[in-house]
């Protein structure tokens, strides 16, 4: 049994809105093994980013546990978390255009987290560490004095990666790190992330809406829909034996760059329903082509259908293909 780095148990994050409670992350349970990558997939508004930010303590969980090497980081005082765990858990943000201070140079940006986490470190030590980080992520020395607006998206994302890595974390939440990039740059960044994982034994939680990216980089995949995890299994398993109707629709919606494949696509009707005060029913029922009365009256739970493959659907058995 591989070593578990992170155990998430019944994690909930609700936001209070004028119209009621918004269930952004609702009762999510999963584990991440050390050195592995879990891919979190779903459409906008399904709670992927909120989940990432809650693990990072950028949001405080409404209830539930997040055990990092056995310590509950969701419940401990924020101050303690910052002192003991913030360096271990870092995040790479989606938009390299918005997540960097435009008035700081590249070197200053990479120095900042090191300085904040090590207030006693000498200035020259901070600078030399930052320079090492820049080299590690492939930022040329001549860019030290450049400002973010002078750089293209790929280089900016490298700054984001250098900032996250500069504290030598063990676990990195990557929130759509390549969504804003062109395909040729996307390939560079994905390769860099994989190299760093191999060399430093990093563990990733990779949040994305791009199924082909997630297949490429992940060991495990979890599909989210309106705050809930609806399917969870090994990466290749989900592409070979998709069970949940939403996952099926999500996969069939991906356009395939091949002139001859004209696949039958399962086009979903309607759009995401509201996550505010959801009724106790299957949240996908309104769009599901197979929905029955039971789906509208009873909420399905995530259950293990095959070893390592869990699905939240009342009728999961009938979608199992051999």
């Amino acid at each position: 049994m591989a070593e578990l780095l992170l155990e998430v148990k019944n994690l909930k994050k609700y936001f209070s809105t004028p119209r009621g409670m918004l269930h952004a992350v609702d009762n999510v349970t999963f584990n991440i093994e050390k050195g592995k990558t879990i891919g979190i997939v779903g459409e906008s508004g399904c709670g992927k980013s909120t989940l990432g930010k809650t693990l990072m303590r950028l949001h405080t969980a409404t209830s539930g546990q997040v055990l990092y090497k056995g310590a509950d980081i969701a419940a401990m005082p924020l101050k303690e978390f910052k002192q003991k765990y913030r360096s271990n858990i870092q995040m790479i943000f989606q938009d390299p255009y918005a997540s960097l201070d435009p008035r700081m140079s590249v070197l200053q940006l990479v120095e900042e987290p090191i300085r904040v986490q090590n207030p006693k470190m000498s200035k020259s030590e901070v600078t030399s560490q930052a320079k090492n980080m820049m080299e590690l992520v492939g930022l040329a020395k001549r860019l030290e004095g450049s400002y973010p607006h002078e750089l293209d998206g790929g280089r900016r994302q490298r700054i984001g990666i250098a900032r996250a890595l500069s504290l030598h974390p063990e676990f990195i939440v990557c929130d759509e790190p390549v969504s804003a990039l062109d395909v040729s740059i996307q390939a560079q960044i994905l390769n860099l992330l994989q190299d760093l994982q191999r060399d430093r034994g990093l563990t990733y939680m990779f949040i994305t809406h791009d199924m082909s990216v997630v297949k490429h980089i992940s060991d495990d995949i979890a599909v989210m829909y309106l705050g809930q995890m609806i399917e969870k299994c090994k990466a290749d398993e989900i592409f070979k034996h998709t069970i949940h109707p939403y996952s099926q629709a999500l996969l069939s919606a991906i356009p395939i760059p091949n002139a001859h494949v004209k696949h039958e696509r399962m086009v979903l009707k309607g759009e995401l329903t509201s996550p505010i005060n959801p009724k106790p029913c299957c949240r996908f029922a309104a769009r599901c082509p197979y929905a029955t009365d039971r789906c509208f009256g009873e909420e399905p739970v995530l259950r293990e259908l095959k070893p390592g493959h869990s699905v939240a659907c009342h009728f999961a058995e009938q979608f199992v293909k051999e």
Partner: protein
Amino acid sequence: MSENILEVKDLVIHYETDEEVVEAVNDITFTLKKGQVMGLVGETGAGKTTTALGIMGLLPSKVGHVIQGSIKLEGEDLLRKSPREMRDVRGKRISMIFQDPMTALNPVKTVGDQIAEVVLLHNRCSKAEALKRAQEMLAMVGIVPERYKDYPHQFSGGMKQRIVIAIALACEPDLLIADEPTTALDVTIQAQILDMMRKLQKDHGTSMILITHDLGVVAEMCETVAVMYAGQLVEFGSLEEVFDNPKHPYTRALYQSIPSLDKDVERLHVIPGMVSDPSNLPPYCSFFERCDEKCDRCRDFEPWAVEVDPGHVVRCLQYTPEWNGGEK
């Protein structure tokens, strides 16, 4: 010929500012047949949107200039038209769908009024008739017609894009330019919109230029493909030709850099380096620095477009007949 709806020939577009000249579009030539869908593919800064704005006559005034070339819509050169004549062409004969449906709509006007506006501008009809047409259009794109009195913020992203499409199609244009129509949307919504666009395109026989960076979308929607790099068309041909038999090193590299759903690849192919700076393009092939198949001769002059197979045009020195002979 009359079977071509659009003929773009030797088009060059520059953006001129006080400091520099940005060569956004460099000598592109292509034709679009009636009823056909062409995919215009390329990365950020390749000049896709500039080409579209050039066709629409919507280049930023003062800065954007068409330096040379012609854009013929059914034989009429759009570049020779006065701004007033172009206003009649836009919206009626050519329409454009913009990338971001969130910003393309006016937030303080009802969606019905926004669709009716185009109808009123191009047809002699009363406001009531225009609004009736607006409701028909809403029904056509799958929105309950009664919602014509709603404002954009009351719709979701996918529905806003449907409204933008309704505005573009309200006057039944001959040519529709869709600039990344689904990039801002989720995949399941993208599937809905693409399905709808394909159906509308077939029903009305509209010709379409689909600008995208997603090769999957191209494979599903288009009959011909044009690949742009640094303002040039590096490859142009039918979907099957370009996808099954890509000739230009850039097109090949582009395929290899996408993670695939059917194949397992350990490492992705990387196109080294960055897109050349369009304000400082080299006098030789602009892909030279990043190319896997380059040779010394590539530095000598700029490659020109060569027809390798009927209808399949590539701009790379290795397909130029004179290349092997040594003399140009």
